[in-house]
């Protein structure tokens, strides 16, 4: 048998020399080089890029998996980190659906090519709407931080005002995003919290509210894990000043906790990551925004909103873009902010998750998190010199543990835990000067009693070690 001819790259069929030649001939061009004639010679890059030779599939897999194996995942170590990205149970069906080649490689097709994508996203909007008990939900945006940022800008457009009030307990990561998204024209101020409870200081809020306040934004549960119980009062105060109330919410709480629309929120936002997304080092975040079906609000969404309509065939549904003319796709800089690729696949996945869970599943989820996190607080709190939780308010899923009386820093404790196969809570010392040597621990439905007991005994060991 004769030697092999040059073969094409598996990903680039037309690298076959004969086909390449045939195509060039057909279009009447001599070399591929000629096709780049429009690029001036001085801009032609004539060097060789310093990128290694192609790896075959097997080599690639072995090489990259080799590097990635240096990571230690949360299936190997016990994880108690949360702080905006949470270690929840992901049903296998979620992965099955979001890895289907159809959804994985779909993009921006029309309702006739991509009927399934439209329906799945419309259903996601509808399922999420039940959870927050509001009538409008968008196709997801990047993450909670973006959802909050956009909610704030929506409020600013609706009210034609430029001041926004945020709680001091907000996630620092999220705050950075919001600040940049609001600058230069919106002014962001922080409201104090009460030292013992973490609750928003209503006096401070009253002082800061003004006729230029576009929105009051707060979170429930807060970044620090406790529930804000003054929702009703806050929204009333905001309304009194003509400001819009925006509440950021963790959807995993909504099986048992009242949705913000029930205590006056005009806009609700948050992160979908708990609803079926793997953490992916933060790559599972996905933001949602919900409002009432009020044109004043609907017209301010920058996002795509899919609507339902009958087709010419009796009993059949089709889908399409509601009020497309709002968007930057239609209006460029005249549109509402901007729209583009965001996190649609996570929206579909969250829909799958909610379909699997149903109301009873969401209830059980909330209940189980409450039970397990209360148990953890109780156990950790019973370690001498350790305070859990730092705040008196009721917590959901996360809570602040104060190690400042142990004589050991969070850094030292976390190092000890890490050496024993545990990712300890997020160290708050740097971001919150008032919470020196405090750490934010996260307990979800996946933690067993053994996991919690093991954590407790390791903390004890660490504190008792010298």
């Amino acid at each position, binding site marked *: 048998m004769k030697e092999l001819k040059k073969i094409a790259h598996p990903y680039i069929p037309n690298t076959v020399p004969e086909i390449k030649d045939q195509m060039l001939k057909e279009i009447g061009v001599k070399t591929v080089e000629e096709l780049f004639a429009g690029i001036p010679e001085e801009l032609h890059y004539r060097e060789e890029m310093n990128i290694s030779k192609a790896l075959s599939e097997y080599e690639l897999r072995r090489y990259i998996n080799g590097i990635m194996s240096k990571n230690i995942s949360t299936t190997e170590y016990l994880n108690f980190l949360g702080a905006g990205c949470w270690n929840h149970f992901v049903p296998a069906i979620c992965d099955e659906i979001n890895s289907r080649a159809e959804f994985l490689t779909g993009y921006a097709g029309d309702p006739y090519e991509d009927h399934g994508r439209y329906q799945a996203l419309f259903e996601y909007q509808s399922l999420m709407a039940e959870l927050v008990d509001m009538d409008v939900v968008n196709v997801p945006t990047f993450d909670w931080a973006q959802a909050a940022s956009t909610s704030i800008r929506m409020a600013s457009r609706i009210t034609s005002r430029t001041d926004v009030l945020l709680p001091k307990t907000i996630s620092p990561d999220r705050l950075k995003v919001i600040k940049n998204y609001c600058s230069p024209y919106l002014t962001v101020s922080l409201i104090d919290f009460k030292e013992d409870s973490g609750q928003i200081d209503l006096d401070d809020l009253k002082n800061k509210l003004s006729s230029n306040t576009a929105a009051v934004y707060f979170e429930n549960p807060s970044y620090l894990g406790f529930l804000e119980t003054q929702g009703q009062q806050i929204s009333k105060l905001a309304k009194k000043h003509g400001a819009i109330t925006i509440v950021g919410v963790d959807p995993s709480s909504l099986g048992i906790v009242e949705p913000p629309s029930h205590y006056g929120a005009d806009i609700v936002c948050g992160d979908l990551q708990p609803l079926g997304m793997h953490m992916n080092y933060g790559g599972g975040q996905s933001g949602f925004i919900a409002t009432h079906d009020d044109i004043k609000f609907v017209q301010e969404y920058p996002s795509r909103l899919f609507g339902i309509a*009958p087709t010419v065939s009796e009993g059949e549904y089709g889908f399409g873009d509601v009020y497309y003319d709002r968007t930057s796709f239609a209006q460029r800089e005249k549109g509402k902010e901007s729209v583009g690729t965001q996190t649609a696949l996570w929206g579909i996945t969250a829909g799958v998750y909610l379909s699997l869970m149903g109301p009873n599943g969401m209830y059980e989820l909330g209940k189980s998190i409450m039970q397990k996190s209360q148990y953890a607080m109780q156990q950790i709190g019973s370690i001498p010199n350790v305070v859990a939780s730092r705040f008196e308010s009721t917590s959901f899923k996360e809570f602040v543990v104060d190690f400042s009386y142990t004589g050991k820093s969070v850094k030292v404790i976390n190092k000890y835990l890490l050496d024993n196969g545990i990712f300890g809570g997020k160290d708050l010392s740097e971001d919150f000067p008032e919470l020196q040597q405090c750490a934010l621990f996260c307990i979800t439905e996946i933690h067993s009693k053994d996991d919690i007991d093991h954590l407790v005994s390791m903390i004890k060991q660490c504190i008792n070690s010298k």
Partner: protein
Amino acid sequence: WDEPIIFELHNSGERGVSLPKVECEIVECVGDGVSALPASLIRKSAPELPEISQNRVLRHYLRLSQETLGAAFNVEIGQGTCTMKYSPKVNEEIAASPKMTELHPLQDESTVQGLLEVTHKLDLCMREISGMDYFSFQPGSGTQSLFTMASIVRAYHESKGEGDQRDEIITTIFSHPSQAATAAVKGYKIITLYPDKDGFPDLEKLKEVVSERTAGFVVANPEDTGIYNTRIKEFTKVVHEAGGVCYYDQANANGLLGITRAKEAGFDMCFFNLHKTFSTPHACGGPATGALGVVAKLKQFLPGPIVEKQGNQYILNSDLKHSIGKVRSFQGVPQMIVRAYAWIRSLGAEGLKDVAEIAVLNNNYLYHHILKIRGASAPYIKGQRLEQVRYSWEQLTRETGVSTDDISRRMADFAHQYWTSHHPYVVPEPFTLEPTESTSKSDLDEYIASLTHIAKEAYENPEKVKNAPYNSSIHRVDEQDYFDNPEKWAITWRSYLKKVKEVEKIRS
């Protein structure tokens, strides 16, 4: 399939998945958990989610998946500007490992050295490809990259005390709408350049509009017409001389890999969509990643942290003096970094250049054949197209009354994606085709044949095209104002039940 809306599958009492149990000992310690909540916060009425068994949920979504025409299923040419290329399965396999999916973003750096290493290595590759000096992978899309760059422009001028003075950003009409939109979000006045008769941005017009108010110039090149601005270096020079920052939307970079770079063209910043040029899957519209590169003087403005190598360790460097803060939580979408790096390594320098060359060859082959179809044209200069072309059915519409929208619906019958273009339709009755390197000659011929067939139909039997689709998952959506009338639009099922069904009841 004639698959119902998920709510219609509800059977009270059914359940899709079970949760880990709560141990008796815990219940003994803390009770039911829920009653620990403040009474006012306990949810009074359960959310009206459907109750469905696992098998049925799976069947529902599997069926919907089959009603979605992903890039893996068709000759994916029709979504021009989107660079729909093959997303290799081996990259999916790598990204699906628990060593990626089960990482928490706040884990100790020592436990994510593998991922940080991949990130840094991708950074090095991107530097080679663009000529830029540092990359951030935090932005979650092209649009967010543009926003980030606009933010950096502002921070840069602010750092020089010119933040208020420089309040204009210049762009072109054939650049992606997000360029204008994101700059506007950042408070900039937008100046849009229209093309000259050949479709090139007009250098003279640029000279007219630059001034001490110019903060930046943002452009794609080639633009969405597929035409490469040959005088780009002069453009960036003019802007630089006026004190503006030049930033480059490289969404259309697929024909440029290893051919020409941002640096040499005079740009201070650029970004690539990893989900376009670097093959990560589009995922129905994200999650995705924009790789944002800057020249050295802008490094301190990047959103942090960025990954750097320190000795043998990889670290997250948050110490960026002028950082704009953040644009996305944590470190963006790292699983796309892994996929993109895998793709680059499966090609090497030579393969990347092959990508550009074949993408351009494919596009020119398609261009050659589309122009032979009666009624089709490609406005502006003849030839000189790189990786895509914006075409026009102006003549066909004039002669037959069949519009580009009609053709779009008819293409669905042939299982082809077909995208017109962003509004406003500067090119009349537009359609935008972008074959990447992933399509073979046979694929191109198939697509050409479909379009030729439909154009012929338009001349012979225009009603046939106008009444399409015939073979789609659904029939034509009823032509009313369901999507624009606030009384009738229904963005959720609950809203539909309230509004539309109410209306129907009244009517009947």
